[in-house]
């Protein structure tokens, strides 16, 4: 069969067509992480990737960022084929990824320094980005002087300073305590509303998905495929204690349970085999 040109809107923030990824392809250790991913994400949309651990949801994020190459299919962002990383698609990691030898403002303006911007320009952009995350006072501090939550806010500021069209977030709040996490979710929603960027947010917390997402992409366990796309059509700001929110959490829990069970059985079989 001839190759069919994929059809999609070039205005979409992210488009994946039959994307697959096999790690260590062609070797004995080869294993398939992702299979047949088709996804369309609109500009300004908040999408959460939800799935059991090891299902490849983070891998998909890395593929969209352009940090890894897919072994099947292709990804586009605003009509352009994703081949390399781009400042338009900023990635925020689970662990602290601030440069410990730079001050907060130098971290935030790292991307500008790479482009050779002047110190005055870098400082003003950093000041603006830090103001947006409420950390103006911490400009001249070093990362090790900040708490975990503050460090992640700096990481968000660093991403925002690049004026990204897509924010990719890989379990960014996983290392934070429950109270800080709730605050950070509110904070992220504010940032998202102001920036107008699309957010792709990986998590395995159902609560987090219901609190944040416009749509939740539920993944199957290995190899990761899209099990279903679940819209969260609750009005914002959300009352997470409402009956509708509770019903959605229950539905998502049901959807995930099969996959988690399957992942568990697989791991046990694997352990028994070796």
């Amino acid at each position, binding site marked *: 069969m001839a190759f069919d040109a994929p059809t999609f809107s070039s205005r979409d923030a992210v488009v994946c067509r039959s994307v697959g990824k096999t790690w260590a392809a062609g070797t004995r250790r080869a294993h398939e992480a992702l299979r047949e991913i088709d996804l369309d994400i609109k500009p300004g949309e908040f999408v959460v990737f939800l799935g059991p651990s090891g299902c490849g949801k983070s891998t998909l994020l890395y593929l969209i960022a352009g*940090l890894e190459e897919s072994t099947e299919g292709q990804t586009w962002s605003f009509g352009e084929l994703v081949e390399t990383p781009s*400042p338009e698609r*900023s*990635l925020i990691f689970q662990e602290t*990824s601030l440069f410990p*030898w730079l001050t907060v403002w130098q971290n935030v303006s790292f*991307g500008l320094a790479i482009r050779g911007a002047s110190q005055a320009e870098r400082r003003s952009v950093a000041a603006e980005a830090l103001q947006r995350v409420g950390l103006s006072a911490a400009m001249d501090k070093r990362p090790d002087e900040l708490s975990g939550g503050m460090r992640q806010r700096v990481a968000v500021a660093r991403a925002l300073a690049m004026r990204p069209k897509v924010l990719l977030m890989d379990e960014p709040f996983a290392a934070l305590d429950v109270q800080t996490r709730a605050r950070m979710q509110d904070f992220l929603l504010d940032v998202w509303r102001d920036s107008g960027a699309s957010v792709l947010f990986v998590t395995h917390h159902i609560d987090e998905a219901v609190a944040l997402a416009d749509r939740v992409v539920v993944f199957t366990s290995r190899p990761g495929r899209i099990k279903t796309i679940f819209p969260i059509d609750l009005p914002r700001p959300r009352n997470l204690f409402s009956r509708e929110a509770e019903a959605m959490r229950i539905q998502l829990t049901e959807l995930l349970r099969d996959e988690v069970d399957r992942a568990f059985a697989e791991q046990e079989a694997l352990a028994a085999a070796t």
Partner: protein
Amino acid sequence: MAVVSRDGDAGAAAGASRPAAATRPFEPARLVASVARLDWLAKVWWACLSVGLFAGLWELCWALGWADPQLLPPPHIFLSNFGEQGKFFNTATRWQVGNAMGEGPSAFESVMITVGATTMRVFVGLVLASVLAIGIGVAIRYWHLFDKLVLPTVTLLSPVSPIAWLPVAIFLFGIGNAPAIFMVVVALFFHMVLATINQIDGVSPNLINVARTMGASKPQIYGRVIVPAILPGMLAVLRLNLFGAWMVVLVAESTGVGYGMGQVIMLARNTFNPSLVFFTIAVIGILGFVFDWLLRLAQRRILYWLPDTKEKLRGL
């Protein structure tokens, strides 16, 4: 209205707390400074106590007659006659043709010239080895072809003892400073290349990925992320190799350098002079200690971002 009154309350509360802060009994910054001064004094005190204890035990053995002063002369004997020991230093200048026995530099000058010469060899060797090793280590990770061509040879040569390089040093450089410096470099270089590669491989992939998503080129990633990220580890490697350099330089100098601490030790061995051996060991010990202290100072300056984890271990 309600908002205004709340603001007013907050202002009043802040105003009330301000005088209280001013009359606090102590200033934390000053207290920290005075504790730091005490800490420094305490360090000197413990160092003196540690050395004193060791010397005291030795003296005790001597006093009890267990340590033969002909073989193991205690500190008060080998340190007492500085002039007598000093004349064995800087043998090259002292025993130049045409110099009478009483001429030439004084004992103190001789010791200083010898110490200076050996220190210079250690320092130059260490700097050359570090620059070469970090440069080549980074290049090995930077260019894949370079890796394939160079790394096997480096790995092959790294277990070779410096002693084996000694004849090579003499073949290549004859006598003088060059072979001694070559020995220091060759003894440190291969290990430091491997250590550099090890450090580069340990850099968090997140840091590299952040730079990549911001559009950093390969040279920028190496220059702005990898090199600063490996600096702490490299300075630790440098500190360990500093002692290695001191050990090797003595071996190198004991052959045909003309003068240096190694030469003095060889002289002491050949003339059966244990006092001179221990005197030289004491001088080397002090030099090594000072070098290490200076390097630690530099480390704290360069690696300003590293927290001090030593204190955590103290609490265990």
